[in-house]
């Protein structure tokens, strides 16, 4: 018989968390960020104003001499990641081992497009890891299926209001909380100023609207023969909705009503005029103008990186880490390729994602740390060790460092740290993507979200772009699928 509390934590752990709340939250709350004042200037102003002692914060939750083991699955850096991501990953493991020398972490890193399938299957087979770091799209489904342990930020020593409300919403299912946000980000429009110039466009001015983006893409293709925009429409790839949904929301569309001020997820927007306008814009680029890669239907964002660094692609939507990726790639190139790559890096620009008739929108992305229920985990579940690990990972220090090149700290106290100041100084264009955080729209927080975003939306795009269906029929077909899926009549 284990001595788990209502959330599955030990009584000692809960007392420690309570003590943490008494000591920490006052200071932590006042050290949070002011979303109303959010701007690049504000972010720069607050960076470096807070000192953090991670070990001391974690010790309030689980003693540093705790002995145990944690199994952990995550999407770690891969070959497409910049070198700095690999270095920070290694530093993280070394730092955790130093802080909790008696806790062993058995970690496994997976490919982004495979990890959800593996987690689902493992949990069904009662061999899930104790802790996993998963993208915010997946939590509702796993919580609804009863795989996740209830887990509030307070359980690992941090007040809930230190995290973005959108991020907290993504870990909430039927009023209960099932995770702690690790990092949150929004993407930006990235363009090659040199190609803009060759196409007769102002290299410093990005398309202001999605309609303009279609025009810019066509001009680049016509004038240079290069691809204008790096469309991504692959099925079963998270990259697709992250690029199409901002366009869809901008025109007044959506999957459900997720872009509205108070979404109820009871209305399907896929068949509305806004979605059809966004789909038409994609159709115009792919079919009419042929200004985007033909391979868009099988590409992920990774496949856009090579043509971009080679100067064959004008615009794409991605994370701030794309700059570090391009610098890395330019460093590895040689001869004429090196000259070309250096020119691309020198002319690389970041800007806000275009706006549309209804709004400027971007996906509120990010990842959360979850603890799985002992009943779906193989072997003995060490809840305190798991909590210690989550506390370490989601504190201001490591939620900032682990998000170094591509995201932002989920724990908003991270924005006040000296590491955030370093990031702003080192990472070009970080302020652009960071400034859009308050405008980010989370995907619908329902268990069917992964299916809608990764299958229904890409299928709609593919049906229209291949001419298998008209734009209207493709959107209506997708809307019908979602209505059937959610029993919305």
């Amino acid at each position, binding site marked *: 018989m284990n001595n788990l509390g209502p959330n599955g934590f030990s009584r000692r752990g809960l007392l420690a968390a309570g003590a943490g709340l008494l000591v920490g939250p006052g200071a932590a709350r006042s050290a949070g960020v002011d979303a109303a004042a959010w701007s690049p200037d504000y972010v720069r102003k607050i960076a470096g104003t807070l000192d953090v002692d991670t070990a001391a914060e974690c010790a309030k939750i689980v003693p540093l001499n705790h002995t145990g083991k944690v199994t952990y699955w995550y999407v770690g850096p891969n070959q497409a990641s910049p070198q700095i991501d690999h270095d920070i990953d290694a530093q993280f493991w070394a730092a955790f081992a130093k802080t909790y020398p008696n806790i062993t972490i058995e970690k496994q890193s997976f490919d982004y497009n495979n990890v959800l399938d593996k987690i689902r299957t493992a949990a069904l087979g009662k061999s899930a890891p104790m802790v996993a770091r998963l993208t915010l799209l997946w939590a509702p*489904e796993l919580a609804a299926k009863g795989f996740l342990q209830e887990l509030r930020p307070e359980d690992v020593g941090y007040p809930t209001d230190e995290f973005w409300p959108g991020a907290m919403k993504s870990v909430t299912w039927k009023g209960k909380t099932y995770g702690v946000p690790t990092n949150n980000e929004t993407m930006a429009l990235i363009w090659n100023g040199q190609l803009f110039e060759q196409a007769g466009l102002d290299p410093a001015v990005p398309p202001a609207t999605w309609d303009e983006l279609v025009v810019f893409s066509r001009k680049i293709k016509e004038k240079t023969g290069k691809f204008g925009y790096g469309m991504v429409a692959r099925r079963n790839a998270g990259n697709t909705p992250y690029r199409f949904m901002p366009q869809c929301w901008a025109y007044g569309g959506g999957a459900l009503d997720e872009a509205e001020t108070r979404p109820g997820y009871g209305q399907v927007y896929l068949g509305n005029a806004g979605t059809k306008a966004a789909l038409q814009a994609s159709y115009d680029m792919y079919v009419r103008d042929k200004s985007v890669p033909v391979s868009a239907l*099988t590409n992920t964002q990774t496949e856009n990186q090579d043509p971009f660094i080679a100067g064959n692609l004008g615009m794409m939507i991605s994370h701030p880490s794309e700059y570090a990726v391009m610098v890395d790639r330019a460093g590895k190139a040689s001869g004429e390729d090196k000259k070309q790559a250096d020119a691309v890096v020198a002319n690389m620009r970041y800007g806000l994602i275009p706006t549309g008739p209804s709004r400027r929108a971007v996906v509120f992305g990010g990842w959360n740390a979850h603890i799985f229920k002992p009943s779906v985990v193989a072997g003995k579940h060490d809840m305190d060790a798991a909590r210690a690990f989550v506390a370490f990972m989601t504190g201001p220090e490591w939620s900032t460092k682990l998000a170094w090149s591509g995201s932002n700290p989920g724990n908003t106290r991270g924005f006040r740290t000296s590491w955030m100041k370093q990031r702003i100084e080192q990472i070009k264009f970080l302020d652009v993507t960071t400034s859009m955080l308050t405008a980010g729209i989370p995907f619908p927080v329902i268990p069917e979200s992964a*299916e809608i975003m990764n299958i229904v939306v890409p299928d709609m795009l593919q049906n229209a772009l*291949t001419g298998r269906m008209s734009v209207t029929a493709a959107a209506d077909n997708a809307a019908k699928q979602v209505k059937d899926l959610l029993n919305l009549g």
Partner: protein
Amino acid sequence: MANARPGLLRRIVRHRADYLYVAPALLVMLLVIAYPIYDTIYLSFFNTPPNLALEDKIFIGLGNYQRILGMDSFHEATWNTFVWTVFSTLFAFVLGFGAALALNREFVGRGLMRGILLIPYVISAVAASYIWRWLYHSDFGVIGAISVAIGLTENPINFLDSTDFVMASLIVVNVWKEFPFAMIMMLAGLQTVPDQLLRAAQVDGAGPWHRFWHITVPHLKGVTLVTVLLLLVANLNSFTIPWIMTGGGPAGASEIWITHIYQLAFGRIRFGLASAYSVILFIVMMGMGYFYVRALTKGDAK
């Protein structure tokens, strides 16, 4: 009654040592084959929506089967599966048989050629799929670049992002991957054709075509049947190449039964529906298995 056949129990007792020897293997088979089959059939009668834990599944009888048979995507996938299986099998067999005939003759470098032709078969299907994906790439693929360079086409050929060409492109990869299997099988068969018969026919004035048609082909009937059946089963079950190269796209143009089942189970989290689909595939496979066993045991004395 002295000649009466002993009862089953008595026969088991009499051969208990034999049964003991095969028991571990039988147990493993029950665990890894029989139980999953039972569980799949059981699950096929339940609705398993993504917002429910599997324990809370809802019994719907034959509802999943009715739903599958009414799905447009099932009919499209069935047609694609038919095209994929028949053409992959046909071309792999013809190419493999041709290669076997060539390699059955004496010539300098025959061993080397045999080794080279086996390469596609021994390469990992995952690695091969990724390589072919880049060869075929609609914008930067080598094949497209060559076709433009030699003036064959104005633009790179759209192999994988076109609903018209994707299935044919995948079949080419599949045939390339599995024709060496047919080649090995047929080569083994060709080596059993009696030389005396071929020489006697030659003495009697039979030309190469007649010798091939009237002596070689009849001798290869058994191995041909087995090879074709094994290719059919392999192709019906083939997952790696279509999944890695296109994921069933674009717009479902390369979706075959097995990728559709995977998509339903792990993409759409409909384990009940995917189980019913798997049962349908299982029945088809069992039918093929029956013919395979018949072909293998044909002529066996009881």
